């Protein structure tokens, strides 16, 4: 309805604000539809935000990558584990999961990086790092891991 305020949730990973579903309540765990991050909903004076679930853990980046691939219909290939190892290395050295194939440690290169979130995989068949692939361009495609139910 025109004039009706749409509530949004701030994602601290991709910095996007996605639409809030009125069925959600504080403490619910939701998936950011832009980057795949698992977020625990918090209501703050300036609106809804999500706290990163499993922040800084290997589980966080594994779940984020799998959720992002599921949302977009992407797959991985045989480099998946090596690239995850690189992301975990970035987190150890530079305090977040930045693209392991780039020099810069800035929010726009938080994995999945901004160009990937903007559709690079659809255009080029893969992301800069060769982590996410379009189904028709991946040799030996590896589907996202099933949800763990956590």
């Amino acid at each position: 309805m025109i004039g009706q305020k749409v509530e949004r949730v701030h994602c601290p990973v991709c910095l996007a604000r996605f639409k809030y579903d009125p069925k959600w309540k504080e403490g619910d765990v939701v998936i950011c539809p832009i980057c795949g991050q698992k977020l625990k909903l918090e209501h703050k004076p300036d609106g809804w935000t999500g706290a990163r679930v499993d922040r800084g853990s290997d589980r966080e980046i594994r779940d984020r990558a799998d959720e992002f691939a599921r949302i977009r219909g992407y797959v991985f290939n045989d480099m998946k584990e090596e690239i995850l190892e690189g992301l975990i290395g970035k987190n150890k050295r530079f305090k977040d999961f930045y693209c392991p194939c780039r020099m810069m440690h800035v929010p726009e290169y938080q994995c999945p990086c901004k160009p990937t979130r903007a559709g690079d995989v659809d255009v080029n068949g893969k992301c800069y790092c060769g982590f996410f692939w379009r189904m028709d361009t991946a040799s030996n495609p590896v589907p996202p891991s099933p949800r763990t139910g956590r």
Partner: protein
Amino acid sequence: MAATKEKPTVYALSTCPYCKRTRRFLDDHKIDYECVEVDLLDDKAQDEVMDKIEKLSGKRVFPVVVVGKDIIVGHDEAKLKKAFHL
């Protein structure tokens, strides 16, 4: 007097899986090389090396392998084999 043969150099990122594959390939073939992990250098050294990489390869990507006059950009086993006569 013969010129000293320069050691091959790998410019890499410490977290880059393709750089690791290149290094593993050289290690497996017992090739002696120098490795510069660019992301672990201080800012000044990093700028200098990045400028050098751009001049050599025309890009700012990793890994870059310098073998004499050959410049190999990205992990490319066919090019590595050719450059090292394997």
